[in-house]
């Protein structure tokens, strides 16, 4: 994988000297779509640095460019302009197969619609990233089992998605997102299709995962509870960062207490 080091003037300047390099650095990202001769500026110049272990929420009205920003950070869409570094790797310089490897080992995804593979059991779904990641056969099942136990589904490993409730499906998806020990997990409206109580459960689980495993979280949400728990909220409007809020403690504050 081609590694590109951060430019000296990068967003990392704000980090403490001893701190690990930031998980995500977005520099001047722009994404234009061409629809019927008109240019849609979905993302129009966003700079964003996300520290390791940080829990960042993205908020904004629909059509504001949240999902596009999300896809850019997740290596799912290439920006028209600008650069994105994930763990110091410039992802615009990666070819298709390197990008696949990055998605596999460094990024976990949680979707609003769960997106489990319908023909596979919960265990098989959680094993998928391990297969693609080249983990030994003997190790795979144990790790997937442990992960499902961690999200409280140890007794439902052989159930197919259709035999699970929405909340249970999302827990399988969380297990799948975290099983490869990614550097960052992207959650796109993870509670959008769940009722309030189940949604709270899922949120607690993601916060717990973030705290316990030090995994960077980027969450696209409307949920008040997630917002309160996050280190930062990035408000996006018309493809630009409108403002950034610190609802909870920042990472430095949290580290001091």
């Amino acid at each position, binding site marked *: 994988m081609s590694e590109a080091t951060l430019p000296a003037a990068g967003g990392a300047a704000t980090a403490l000297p001893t701190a690990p390099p930031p998980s995500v650095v977005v520099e001047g990202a722009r994404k234009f779509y061409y629809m019927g001769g008109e240019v849609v500026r979905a993302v129009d110049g966003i700079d964003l640095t996300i520290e390791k272990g940080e829990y960042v929420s993205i908020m904004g009205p629909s059509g504001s460019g949240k999902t596009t920003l999300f896809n850019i950070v997740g290596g799912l869409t290439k920006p028209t302009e600008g650069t994105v570094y994930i763990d110091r790797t410039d992802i615009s310089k990666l070819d298709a197969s390197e990008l696949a490897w990055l998605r596999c080992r460094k990024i976990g995804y949680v979707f609003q619609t769960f997106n489990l593979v319908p*023909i596979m059991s919960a265990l098989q779904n959680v094993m998928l990233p391990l297969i693609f990641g*080249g983990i030994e056969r003997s190790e795979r099942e144990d790790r997937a089992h442990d992960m499902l136990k961690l999200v409280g589904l140890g007794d439902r490993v052989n159930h197919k998605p259709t035999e699970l409730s929405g909340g249970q499906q999302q827990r399988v998806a969380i297990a799948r997102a975290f099983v490869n020990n990614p550097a960052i997990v992207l959650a796109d409206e993870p509670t959008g299709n769940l009722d309030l109580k189940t949604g709270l459960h899922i949120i607690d689980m993601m916060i717990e995962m973030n705290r316990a495993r030090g995994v960077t979280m980027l969450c696209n949400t409307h949920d008040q509870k997630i917002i309160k728990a996050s280190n930062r909220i990035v408000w996006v409007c018309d493809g630009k960062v409108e403002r950034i809020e610190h609802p909870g403690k920042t*990472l430095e504050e949290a580290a001091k207490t």
Partner: protein
Amino acid sequence: MSAPLAAPAPPVAEEPGRSQLPLREALSFFVFQSLKLRMGRMAVVLLGIIFAIAFLAVLLGTEIVFAGIHRLSAKAGNTVEASSGFQRWWIAVALLIATVGVTNAVLMSVTERIKEIGTLKCLGARSLHIMQIFLFETLLLGGIGGLGGGLLGVLGVVAMFAMPLKSDFGLVFSWLDALWLVGLSTAASLGISLVAAVAPLIYAARIEPAEAMRYEV
């Protein structure tokens, strides 16, 4: 940054590599389960392949039998008219119909799984892996169809000629001819499956994960 957040961070794989999908997993996780799930439709496609290939096998078998009769009569001093090349047109038409049927089946299988393909690409699958999955599915279908069609074709040849030719049948259509016919049928079936799969496979490989996620079935 010290205590609670940084400490338990699990090691992240730094080594460069390529995501992979071993054959065993490709079959057990994807191909077999998918065919099982879509059994009804796959059975219809399979029947189509079997009949087209059986048709091919019967026509080719008939040519073998006629050639045999020709050989025997030449030895006996008689002349029998050889079969016409007209039949080959029918073979081409049958194979074409089978190809279109298989293409349609694979294309349907791809489109109804666009979201699944997008998910797999998010989890690290390469386009190559997606193509592999659908290729194996098609080849499995084509292989079974070819074998079944070849056997059915041999049965057809026996049914058509065993009675009228009586003991001569063994002379014009041997076990080796039957085996050759089944082998040829299977090869032909695998061939048309391969051709049929090209367009759907390219389509599946080009699916972008970001777009696939927004796709509503």
